[in-house]
């Protein structure tokens, strides 16, 4: 299968890439790892007139800790993040999610930014970013803006990105107190998209109570969901098994799974309940060790 013809541009600076997008708007599409876009081109679900390959732009794949946050460039690849000691230290939920995305071959090319921009409701990164309270940096020829992950996803394959914008960086605030996080994913076989995925991030205060709980849900709604009711119930509470069980029930009640080949809505809801509870317990273990 061949992709439809397009005009290929491989700019070597971000400014140049943004200028091309500003000129072509809806006619242009960015190419990052290509692991979602190239299959879509081959199936003729997408047929952009201009393809802007971001792969030649230096400096967009960095991982660094600065100013109380972990900054990850949009072009950082899944495998790179799975192997990063800095990500493991600062964001255990991301570290747990990365090696569960797709398969090793796809992880060698697929990028964090491409995954978020693609906004597949079964994509894993979105839930992690929601749980961790990440801010996404969007750039256009006209300037930059920052959008919280909780407001970035708008629906199935739909985000806050304008056609003239690129996602350049993700900023994850570093916790101030003891903290932990994880990502639990149920898949039919290794390499499959999630039947259900749950990202959890937990921060404790000086007294050992929950300062902040973040919970993101994968594949149980039209987009990656924030389990807002569960998060609110946990804030300020003691991190007890009862509180975690209640959070699981609230998250399960608030999600919108659909029955499909991967399981019934009822089953998925049940898995959300169990995984939120387990994920919180795991995050607490990590926090108490940190």
């Amino acid at each position, binding site marked *: *299968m*061949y*992709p*439809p*013809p*397009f*005009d*290929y541009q*491989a700019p070597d600076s971000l400014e140049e890439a943004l200028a091309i997008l500003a000129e072509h708007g809806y006619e242009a599409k960015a*190419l990052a790892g*290509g*692991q979602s876009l*190239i*299959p879509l*081109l*081959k*199936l003729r679900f997408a047929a952009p007139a201009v*393809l802007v*390959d971001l*792969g030649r732009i230096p400096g967009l794949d960095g991982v660094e800790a600065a100013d109380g946050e972990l900054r990850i460039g949009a072009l950082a690849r899944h*495998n790179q993040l799975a192997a990063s000691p800095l990500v493991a230290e600062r964001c255990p939920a991301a570290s747990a999610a990365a090696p569960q995305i*797709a*398969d*090793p*071959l*796809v992880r*060698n*090319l697929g990028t964090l930014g491409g995954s978020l921009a693609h906004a597949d409701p079964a994509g894993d990164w979105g839930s992690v970013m929601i749980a961790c309270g990440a801010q996404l940096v969007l750039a256009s020829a006209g300037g930059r803006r920052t959008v919280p992950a909780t407001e970035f996803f708008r629906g199935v394959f739909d985000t806050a990105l304008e056609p003239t914008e690129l996602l350049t960086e993700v900023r994850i605030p570093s916790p101030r107190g003891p903290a932990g996080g994880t990502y639990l994913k149920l898949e039919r076989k*290794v*390499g499959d998209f999630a039947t259900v995925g749950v990202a959890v991030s937990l921060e404790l205060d000086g007294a050992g109570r929950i300062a902040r709980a973040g919970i993101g849900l994968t594949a149980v709604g039209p987009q990656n969901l924030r389990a807002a009711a569960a998060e609110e119930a946990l804030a300020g509470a003691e991190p007890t098994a009862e509180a975690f069980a209640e959070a699981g029930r609230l998250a399960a009640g608030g999600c919108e799974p659909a029955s499909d080949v991967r399981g019934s809505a009822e089953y998925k809801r049940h898995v959300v309940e169990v995984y939120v509870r387990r994920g919180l317990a795991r995050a607490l273990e990590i926090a108490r060790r940190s």
Partner: protein
Amino acid sequence: MEITVTVNGTAETRDVEPRLLLVHFLRDVLGLTGTHVGCDTTGCGACTVLLDGAPIKSCTLLAVQADGRAVTTVEGLIENGQLHPIQEAFKEEHGLQCGFCTPGMMLVAKALIESNPDPSEEEVRWAISGNVCRCTGYTNIVKACRRAAAQIRQAEVAS
């Protein structure tokens, strides 16, 4: 568009359409048909090649994206007319039946052994988890990868 890709150590310069996939560049332009097309939808790993040493699916990369980079295909495993230890090990351990998945499996094994000279069974299974085999049941593929690793370690001690 003119691109230069170093394939199995040789710089290959060709004028290609931007929409040409790397797998077709290898098979149809260069005549290297050892790289197979299985699913053509990024699901099976039959088209695996090494891009700057890392295994990727060549049906899901444009040839123009490989411009200026190095690609290794199964044809690049053979050295001075001698089978590579990985090829020997697949033969010895019956690591293949129809052979359709084999080029991809062997290239994944090459990348794995380079980064981890003594992979456990679990590590081999994890590494090949993007490559589907419809014949063998994987057991002998795993054995072959570990035998190859042992052989390569021995050869290094000897030299």
